């Protein structure tokens, strides 16, 4: 699940349920054989899986593909989906789904992959309507089989499930720490046992020194407990938004610093923008382009704080005036036998 961590609320889910065309999502005919469905899924999985994909928007595309396969690979679920499709198409011109389109399906042997399944809120509202209740029932049984709590359907208190989400933060947040409000979509059952995805806000304190790829655990912010059991935990995987200027590697931060040729050649005091405050840096005379300079301990904070690296990038003023051109010619004259390609020529 991705959340825009800087927004206080997300737009409300659309009131009108959309019918999801799972066959189109996999690019197969409605008459496709199980083998064809598996083959189509495998190719799309390799293309769009977030762990391996280079495609933009891979995560959203893979969700579509994964959900379609989850339904079409299983004979019972596929049959229920096809039947729901027939009912839906009988609704006529209206946008509302026909009443009862998603009711009356039972799944005896259907596999909901509960052994290693993702979060419930990863599935679309459409999937939730058709399969949600059965998925949760299967998961409860699986949890019981794993020995996690007592058998499903008893009155014993059971701990709620742990949930996972991702959060994008600014590099500056990791330097100083920050408060962020997350909006989460959680399946919630109402009085009649009907489940819909509800929004809930959670305030998160981002601790300074957090690194990309690390997780935050918010105790008790996961799924609600059962029969009075404690709530599960919420895990947040942290990623940094790409920064215009800084590159981050663990706790080390690197900045390409543009300098004028005279600053590099003659030395200069320059101000370096470090995320937690500007630092004055003395560039030694005779510095070459590409020189790496280290500001020890000015990287991300932590038990061993990271370092901040400055890489000198010499930028030439344009020779766009008579005076500038004259200055360059004078420099050329004074350089004498200076040959920047000496090393290349020596190799011949």
């Amino acid at each position: 699940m991705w959340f825009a961590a800087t927004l206080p609320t997300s737009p409300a889910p659309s009131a009108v349920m959309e019918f999801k065309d799972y066959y189109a999502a996999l690019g197969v005919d409605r008459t496709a054989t199980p083998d064809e469905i598996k083959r189509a899924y495998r190719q799309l999985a390799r293309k769009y899986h977030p762990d391996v994909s280079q495609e933009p928007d891979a995560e959203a595309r893979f969700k579509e593909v994964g959900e379609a396969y989850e339904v079409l690979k299983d004979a019972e679920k596929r049959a229920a989906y096809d039947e729901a499709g027939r009912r839906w198409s009988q609704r006529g011109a209206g946008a509302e789904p026909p009443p009862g389109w998603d009711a009356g399906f039972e799944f005896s042997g259907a596999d909901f992959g509960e052994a290693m399944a993702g979060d419930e809120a990863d599935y679309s509202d459409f999937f939730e309507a058709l399969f949600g209740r059965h998925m949760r029932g299967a998961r409860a049984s699986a949890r019981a089989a794993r020995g996690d709590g007592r058998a499903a359907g008893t009155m014993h208190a059971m701990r709620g499930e742990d949930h996972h989400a991702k959060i994008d933060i600014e590099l500056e947040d990791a330097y100083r720490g920050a408060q962020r409000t997350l909006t989460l979509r959680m399946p919630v059952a109402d009085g009649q046992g009907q489940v819909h995805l509800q929004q809930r806000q959670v305030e998160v304190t981002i601790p300074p020194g957090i690194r990309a790829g690390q997780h935050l655990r918010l105790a008790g912010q996961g799924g609600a407990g059962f029969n009075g059991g404690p709530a599960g935990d919420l895990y947040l995987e942290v990623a940094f938004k790409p920064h215009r200027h800084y590159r981050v590697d663990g706790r080390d931060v690197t900045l390409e610093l543009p300098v004028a040729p005279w600053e590099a050649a003659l030395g200069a005091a320059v101000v370096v923008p470090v995320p937690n405050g500007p630092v004055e840096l003395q560039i030694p005379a005779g510095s070459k382009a590409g020189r790496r300079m280290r500001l020890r301990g000015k990287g991300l904070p932590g038990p061993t704080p990271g370092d901040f690296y400055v890489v000198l990038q010499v930028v030439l003023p344009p020779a766009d005036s008579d005076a500038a051109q004259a200055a360059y010619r004078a420099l050329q004259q004074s350089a004498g036998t200076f040959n920047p390609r000496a090393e290349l020529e020596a190799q011949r």
Partner: protein
Amino acid sequence: MSATPTPNAVIVEEAIEFTLDELGRATRTSTRWLVTLVDEGVIAPTQRSGAPMQWRFSGDALRRARQAARLARDFELDLHGVALAMDLLQQIERLKQRLAAAGVRD
């Protein structure tokens, strides 16, 4: 709904140790499957003496176990395939970091 303050956001990789049960709950996998991950070398307890119930895992095991579960489920891989995929992905990640450090834009 008003926001609930959470002063207890803890960095998992630095402050948390998991038991096998806790790791199973956090990753929605069975402890039996996690033991096969340990046997395959995908995750490793900080010390392996004693029964599995006595094992403790560092916070880093959360990320690795979740990735293993995701790869197994999404690519329908067996354990050997998962282990190989994770090794390769880790190599790719390291190479990307070296490229980034050298200033090569992706």
